């Protein structure tokens, strides 16, 4: 009878699990609340780290990740083997552009079609590698807070993978622009994203030059990256910022262009990025009431200094961070304290987060008020719970789940990024799809242990959700109706599906 077999297995798992859990048991419910917010999802590994270090020390390490902590070797090795880890963005883009040229040179349509498809597949592969690296870090990095903030900032400074040739730029954008500043200064983040080729391509600034103004990027900097719509700027300010942004673009050229001698020395080049004085509007600008003298690339730095420190930016971005971690706008004092820290530290993100994590909504949490997980938290937390002690070998199933749940990595077409509001994710259709994903995650390895190489063998990888963390932490907190449904599970797969579908796991 399958039921008996299933229960016998359960008992065995329980026995194995009891061995190594004494330490994590010392954590309070408020500690677990923090663990669930500061990481992509609580699991046994996170709990024992926190218990070993103590809450404050653990939090400090999340805010200031020590170099000594690493990804598990099995995850790091996968990342090291990726072409995006071995080639610069410039090299990737140059190579793919050459390939694109070669494809376009093919006259015969029968020959051209497969070559074009292969070129597209190569572009897409670079994005998949970046997504894969992102997922491995989200699941296994000890620096969970930095990983969450990397996702947060990508979403804040969103670019869409399928526009033009952005795909080979994603890895660099995430790794060298967002992650290093994810817990650093907001001003640095703003400046770095504004000159990244992925952003310049996405919001058309590569096409914005003197006499050919394209105000797309200027508008979204004001509206989405900093001050927010309805705050103290005008259409005129957008047009002035667009003029300031002229000349910032993308190039793969290998020589320095010949320019007006007055401006020759202001030519800038870093990898794919180029500031081309020949395309810049050198007139003076009046931006947010301040005159910015026409001087070249430095004008943008001046403009960024103004908007990064503008009260509207501080208020809006601090609140957005709070909502990301708490699910709803917390009471006034918490956000006000974050704003005060922002002012005091000139936008040091780790300090702002420290204020948030030491504010009442986190230190004295209302345990009954949950934060409904958006799809990315849902999928990552499920995988962290299921495979916290075993590194997955293929992230593609997880990438697909996120896409199915309409929150795919790098896949938000518009620059506003994915919404944080629960109402954006809990519609009937979305929940139905979420249960399908619960079933796929719960039913077996789902391909997570079949490396994405030809001839790979799928290794067994049953998701062991009834693990030490479950027995120590989760079981006692389950609602009666959830327990009743779990008791009626007819197999471990079924149990997993129901558990991941339960209201208890949605928050």
């Amino acid at each position, binding site marked *: 009878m399958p039921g008996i077999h299933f229960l016998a297995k359960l008992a065995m798992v329980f026995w194995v699990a009891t061995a190594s859990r004494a330490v994590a048991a010392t954590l309070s419910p408020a500690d677990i609340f923090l663990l669930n917010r500061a990481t992509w999802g609580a699991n046994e590994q996170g709990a024992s780290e926190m218990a070993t270090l103590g809450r404050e020390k653990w939090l400090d390490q999340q805010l200031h990740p020590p170099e000594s902590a690493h990804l598990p070797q099995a995850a790091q090795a996968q990342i090291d083997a990726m072409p995006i880890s071995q080639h610069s963005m410039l090299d990737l883009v140059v190579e793919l552009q050459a390939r694109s040229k070669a494809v376009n040179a093919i006259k015969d349509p029968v020959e051209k079609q497969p070559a074009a498809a292969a070129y597209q597949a190569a572009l897409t592969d670079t994005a998949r590698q970046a997504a894969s690296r992102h997922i491995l870090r989200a699941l296994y990095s000890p620096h969970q807070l930095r990983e969450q903030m990397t996702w947060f900032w990508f979403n804040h400074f969103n670019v869409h993978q399928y526009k033009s040739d952005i795909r080979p730029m994603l890895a660099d954008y995430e790794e060298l622009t967002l992650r290093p500043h994810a817990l650093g200064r907001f001003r640095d983040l703003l400046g770095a994203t504004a000159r990244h080729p992925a952003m310049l391509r996405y919001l058309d600034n590569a*096409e914005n030059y003197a006499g050919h103004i394209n105000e797309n990027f200027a508008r979204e900097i004001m509206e989405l990256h900093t001050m927010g719509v309805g705050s103290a700027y005008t259409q005129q300010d957008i047009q002035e910022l667009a003029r300031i942004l002229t000349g910032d673009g993308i190039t793969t050229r290998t020589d320095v262009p010949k320019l007006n001698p007055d401006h020759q020395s202001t030519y800038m080049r870093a990898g794919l990025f180029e500031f081309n004085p020949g395309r810049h509007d050198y007139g003076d600008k009046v931006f947010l009431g301040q005159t910015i003298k026409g001087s070249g690339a430095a004008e943008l730095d001046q403009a960024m200094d103004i908007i990064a420190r503008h009260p509207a930016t501080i208020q809006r971005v601090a609140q957005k961070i709070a909502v990301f971690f708490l699910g709803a706008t917390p009471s006034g004092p918490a956000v006000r304290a974050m704003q005060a820290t922002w002012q005091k530290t000139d936008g040091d993100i780790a300090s702002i987060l420290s204020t948030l994590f030491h504010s009442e909504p986190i230190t004295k949490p209302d345990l009954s008020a949950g934060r409904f997980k958006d799809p990315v938290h849902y999928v990552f937390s499920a995988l962290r719970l299921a495979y916290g002690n075993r590194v997955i070998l293929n992230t593609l199933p997880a990438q697909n789940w996120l896409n199915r749940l309409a929150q795919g990595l790098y896949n938000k077409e518009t620059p506003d990024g994915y919404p944080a509001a629960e109402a954006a994710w809990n519609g009937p*259709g979305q929940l*139905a799809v979420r249960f399908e994903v619960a079933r796929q995650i719960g039913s077996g390895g789902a391909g997570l242990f079949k490396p994405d190489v030809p001839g790979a063998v799928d290794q067994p990888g049953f998701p062991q959700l009834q693990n030490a963390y479950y027995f120590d932490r989760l079981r006692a907190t389950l609602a009666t109706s959830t327990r009743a449904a779990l008791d009626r599970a007819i197999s471990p797969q079924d149990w997993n599906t129901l558990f991941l579908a339960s209201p208890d796991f949605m928050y």
Partner: protein
Amino acid sequence: MNRRDLIKAFATAGILTVGGRVWAAPATDARLLVVFLRGAYDAANVVIPTSSDFYYQSRPTLAVPRPNAADPKSAMALDADWGLHPALRASLGPLWERRQLAFIPFAGTDDTTRSHFETQDTIEMGQAIQGTRNYRSGFMGRLAGVLTQTRPIAFTDQLPLAFRGEGTIANIGINAVGKPGVDERQAKLIQSMYEGHRLGTSIAQGFQVRDDVARTIAEETDANRGAVSAKGLELSARRIGRLMREQFNLGFVDVGGWDTHVNQGGATGYLADRIGELGRGLAGFADEIGPAAWPDTVVVVISEFGRTFRENGDKGTDHGHGSVYWALGGGLKGGRMLGEQQTVTQANLFQNRDYKVLTDYRSIFAGLLTRMYGLSAAQLDQVFPGARPTDLGLI
């Protein structure tokens, strides 16, 4: 007075219960589909002011040629002043001839932020910009609350703001419908875990719609009999047509990809391809919903704003103001350009940059809804508080 009281107060016919909700007033066969072109489609290059020399001066690389029978890449004449983009000639031309299609130029909102997201929200909320707005309440959600015997649905991955509010509205990503893996027994167990939970209704509805849609799409596969089937947007639109013929009567769908800042093309090119796809989708919807239901159906195509009247430095257009809305339906008195109009000249531009808005989106919808559903003034005020209906004489 709350909504429920209102419905009861206006109850004239018998009361019936559907899905636990109390419904009143006479039934209607009316069907409404709102199509939201997110990203601000370049209205001036789709419904073209062909009599305006200023248009041709303003768009040296983008302009679509004036109607010319000898040139398939020229606009199709709508009237003396307006022409339709040639990419719509085959799909929507016949509907125009049958007077089942009308355009409302100079339409839009009084939101001048030129922000996609802000203005989309404005439209979906359907509340006056002045004063406080409820950011969790959309006009279609309120409409579903006021109407009788309505089965609303959003054909979108995420429930749009337009449909948010007090009730729970179904949504389904129409592109990605597959055979459900969660079986009947699991679905029941899952629902049992959410009894009394605030997501309970949403989950029950999710399973219901999942099953209904899966059934409809299975029939579609049978009905195709191996013929080449539609793809992409047209496939989605045909599915929506079938679902709205059989099961749902108040729908919302959005189509993205209209934010054409760079190289948008003219008679051919990027925008032409997108608009052609949309035209085939709408014609496919009309075809699929069928001759019995089409006369009772109204499709309204909207977008958050128009684009700059002049082309920009990159053979594209930037964010503007006034747009052109579309109305389609088998029972319309269409084949006309509707609403207040002005000659298209530089002097008539808004801020010397964009089309003006002469007809507010709320009054357009308010007028349509009044005609379609016979809404009372009080009911209308629930849906579009403070809006004054404009009767365009479409229905």
